[in-house]
């Protein structure tokens, strides 16, 4: 049983680390602000969930488990909120999403 939990936790940690790196590569490589937000949301939800679930399986006591659950719930609640606020602010500043077949010349408006 302990061996099984260990293997499951290692798999979750490795997969979460891979998703972290792939989300960061997407954040670095995608052509447009809104597609970068899409890449960043991968790390905010799935990678954080997998890494914290992998740590939960290794938790030595119930209080540690409860704290990890609280952190996961808090991240899952706040990541969409800040993402929504960020997208709304970018739209207010005049940034347009990159669309196929449109004139995308002004998609860097609001730049500093």
């Amino acid at each position: 049983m302990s061996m099984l939990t260990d293997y499951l936790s290692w798999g979750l940690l490795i997969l979460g680390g891979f998703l972290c790196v792939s989300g960061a590569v997407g954040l670095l490589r995608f052509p447009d602000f809104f597609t970068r937000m899409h890449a960043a949301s991968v790390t905010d939800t799935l990678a954080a969930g997998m890494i914290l679930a992998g740590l939960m399986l290794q938790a030595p006591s119930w209080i540690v488990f409860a704290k990890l659950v609280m952190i996961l719930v808090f991240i899952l609640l706040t990541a969409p909120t800040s993402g929504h606020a960020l997208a709304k602010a970018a739209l207010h500043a005049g940034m347009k999403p990159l669309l196929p077949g449109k004139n995308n010349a002004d998609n860097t408006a609001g730049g500093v």
Partner: protein
Amino acid sequence: MFTAAAIAVLVSMGLALVRAFAGPTLYDRILAVNVFGTKTVLLIAIAGFLSGRPEFLDIVMVYALMNFITVIGILRFFEYAAGKETANPESIKDQ
């Protein structure tokens, strides 16, 4: 395994920092800082388990709260201020 996850999180923190320095717009930078904060939360949680002291999770909770408050605060500050120089005329009109 904790070490591998910590290295993966560190690498992605570096990539997010590159985007935060290179980002062409203000919002790219805010997004990269937000991602960096989430990765910091994960890294401190992993580091607590790595050093055998899961009491670090209290610090993790504080960092998660600070990350959220920081992003919302920066956006409140910049939501209308950053668009004024370059935004199109109709978004200036309704301010």
